[in-house]
């Protein structure tokens, strides 16, 4: 064990909580200092100034949209609050549950981790774009028929993540489905019927629906 470490262990253990972030300023400077070595003379400042918000253009479910966004807004909140697309749910806001997954430029991403200002020029697909003319997509239909979800709060994220996979690979293997959905959390179902519904929707598995009429064992 190194000398430094012994020293650290020797310090009496207190938690040093200030209750405000302001209390951490000194500490952070030190942390930055750790990587802040010799900084050369500053070159001329860039012409542009950093901004607090701007107008962005998006294509959402096929419709072009232009709107002003605050730099602090995430895509998830912007979809829900500014564009009224409340089908995108949020379970964690840290990219750890997959509820808010939408398809951006063909790939599933957690919309809570995308800054709306960074989504300028992107094509976004949300759960609202799936059912055409009130008719559910085959994936949605299979999920209703085979009871993929229970409370359903995680469903929009699962469905959009699965759609991104199926768009690329119409008949994915069960392993590929499992890997694609590995960032989506569901507390109700045990995932079994979600995977099964996708296998059924892609014609790879017969529905396992049967009632035995035998005597009680």
């Amino acid at each position, binding site marked *: 064990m190194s000398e430094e470490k012994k020293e650290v262990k020797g310090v009496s253990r*207190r*938690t040093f*909580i200030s*209750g*405000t*972030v302001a209390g951490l300023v000194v500490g952070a400077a030190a942390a930055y200092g750790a990587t802040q070595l010799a900084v050369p003379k500053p070159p001329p400042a860039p012409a542009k100034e950093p901004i607090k918000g701007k107008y962005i253009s998006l294509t959402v479910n096929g419709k072009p949209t232009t709107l002003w966004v605050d730099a602090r807004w995430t895509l998830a*909140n912007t979809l829900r609050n500014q564009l009224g697309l*409340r*089908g*995108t*749910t949020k*379970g*964690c806001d*840290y990219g*750890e*549950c997959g*509820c808010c997954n939408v398809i951006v430029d063909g790939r599933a991403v957690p919309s809570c981790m995308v800054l709306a200002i960074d989504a300028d020029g992107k094509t976004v697909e*949300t*759960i*609202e774009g799936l059912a055409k003319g009130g008719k*559910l997509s085959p994936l949605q239909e299979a999920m*209703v028929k085979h*009871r*993929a*979800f*229970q*409370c*359903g*709060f995680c*469903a*929009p994220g699962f*469905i959009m993540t699965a759609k991104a996979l199926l768009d690329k690979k119409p008949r994915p293997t*069960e392993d590929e489905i*499992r*890997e694609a*959905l*590995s*960032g*989506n*959390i*569901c*507390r*109700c*179902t*045990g*995932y*079994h*019927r*979600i*995977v099964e519904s996708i*296998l059924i929707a892609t014609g790879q598995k017969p529905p*396992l*629906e*049967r*009632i*035995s*009429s035998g*005597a*009680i*064992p």
Partner: protein
Amino acid sequence: MGKRFVGDLTQFADKMAKYGYSGLRYMGQRVDDVNGPGIVTGTADWTFNVNLPGMLVGKLKRSPYAHAKIVSIDTSKAEKIPGVVFVGTAKHPMFAGKLIFGDEPVLCDKEVWSNNDPVAIVAAETLEAADDAIDAIDVKYEELPVETDPEAAASPSPSVVQKSPPPNKEGRPNCFYHIPLRYGDFDKEMADSDVTVELASVQPPDPHGTPCTMNAVAVWNGDGSISVWDDVQNIHPVPWPVIAGMVGLPQEKVHFHGPEVCAGGFGGKNAGLAGVYAAMLAIITQRPVRVLYDRTEGLLHVSRPCWKWKVKIGAKKDGTLTALEATTYIGGPYGRFLGGLLERARNGLTGTYRWKAVKYDGYASYTNAQNTLSYRGYSSPETCYTVEMAMDELAKKLGMDPLELRLKNFLNEGERNAMNEIFRSMGSPGVAKKIREFMDAWGPKPSAPDPWVVGRGFASGNKYTQGGMVTNTAHLKFKANGVVEIITDSMDIGTGLNTIWRQFVAEALNIPIENTVKIAVNTDYSPHTSNSFSSMATFHGGYALINAATNAKKILFENAAKILNVKPEELETKDGKIMVKGKPETAIPWSQAFPSIPGQPGPASEMTVSGGIYSPDDYLGPGKMDPATSQCLGPYFRSVLFHSHQAAAYEVMVNKETGELRVTKFAGGCDLIPVNPTNVEGQIEGGMLIMGLGTAISEARYEDKGMYLGKSYLEWKIPTVMDVPKTDYVDTAIVPVWGEAHGDNPRIDAPFGAKGTAEGVQAPSAPAIANAVADAIGVRLTNIPFTPDVILKALGKA
């Protein structure tokens, strides 16, 4: 190929007939979930999606410490942030009170007892302003000593005395509850045992962890009332009176809207406290307010408590069980539901097997662990866990097959258990045999590539369902066009209740299910029906609905008999028409037989009929149960309404080098008549593949001085789809038994014989995995979860 077994239901046809049986038209059928289309299009009416113009964001400032004195709270900086409308502390009279059982502050004033205790509240125009304000509130604390261990806290001389004055139950300063059970001659039976097994286990707190966190919206109405939308699993027993009481309004002035589907409950949404804070802020700001807990709060605000168990069981050489000794300790910062948990643990101990003697003591104490609430199973999984591991160890010692040992000792139908209850609808043997059959059908254990080893385990389980707490009324509104509206306050929490309510009514009235509508839950017109907890809604609510249907048919037949000039008993009904039995040409629509309004000609345009039962009580209280021994007294011999039984089997693979644990095969089942087999299978899969499995393999709860370190989904590890077996290795079994309440007088049938099971499915899960791990590595692990560090330590590699 995975199997889905549902036993024969036609054998119950005659018994079902008295409830309006019309040929398994909807009973036992896989009717599509009525919420399905809303769910897959993201348009389901979760409370999360309630959106009102001008709605403020409400947020709570919470304590990072598990136990500390609050020295000062400075809100001045937060108040100056643009967009902040209100900042409050316990100094504000609205927030000075106590919640639920009177020992939990709305906002803490002088002291915090657990990590996450609320100390201040903010309402702001935007999420950004609200979060900035929360960060700008400066709270100074002075740390106090922390105790999170419920056993140490229960000591007669604990290191920390939490409350002043201390409850001091039986000379234990922090202990506020002690529940004993004494049955038989314990000392003699234990001494006479040929073989005994002793096990101790620790089961850490485990949050409900629903992706949708607690959330509510409240709005102040100009007439002095408030409207509240709260994501809850019950309304009448807890959230409605608590909110009304906390804001000082009569309940009639709190218009309470339930969600179309509660976005995941598991017991965590029984209190609905987000609604309390939203209502308070709405009254103060006179604006609509949403309170939505963030992920961190979602994992910290409630959990099941830490359970510590010590269990000793004895048996004769032939495997006959003799005595059971069990001691348990639980704790939390506030009383809440902890006492009830210890009472219910008795039911877990006495609900599967026949014991000659039982000695049980449960202690609940104040600790600085995370706050608690009801949790799926409400003590059944935690109780079955240690006992079912001990059963496997006993089988090993006796050289018996674990299933044979269990079959020899399962309680029989009609037998009295160790609480002196007469036991009804006992399905354990059937379920256990079926699951074992599935397990055997997996074939011999596969050989795994080095360093993986394979193990298999099996366990039984039970879950009680409580009576009482329910006045249980349902209304059916019959419309002239043949549609029947179902008016109840019961919440679908993902279990499919919105669908099975319609199945019950359509079956009882023999009408197309499309003609039934479940009306949104709103206290302005919803009666108190069953609550969606304790797996009771199917039994209680279903009973009320069928009773309402029966009452309605009686009225309709009496009126129709006059029109058709026959006796009411000569009539039958189908698809909204009444006819003389076997004479469809005599059919008249229901609407002609609606009662008329007195003094008015002809039938009224609609008819509303109520039904219900005063749910059989738990028979606790004077003269009903001896508090010193927990023995049921009097003629009914019942402490709960009924038990349900389950079994599970798992195959696991353990990497002996990395300690990684993977679950590769699963079979699980329960004993009931399913209203909708798909829903029941969904409960089996969900209870056993996500919650039970997560509890056992990954949901570790790390804390340092009571400060929880796992406050996100990355750190508190809920299983993902990669952690459950593939679809070909998931077998489920529904083994039907006629559902009936315990006791003899009156003997109460479940509606169409259908009892509930949504919680019990978790009970055999963790012990079956524990038994599988023991089989794989040859070492018995009892403290969950079995994370790699725990497994390698057991293997002597750490």
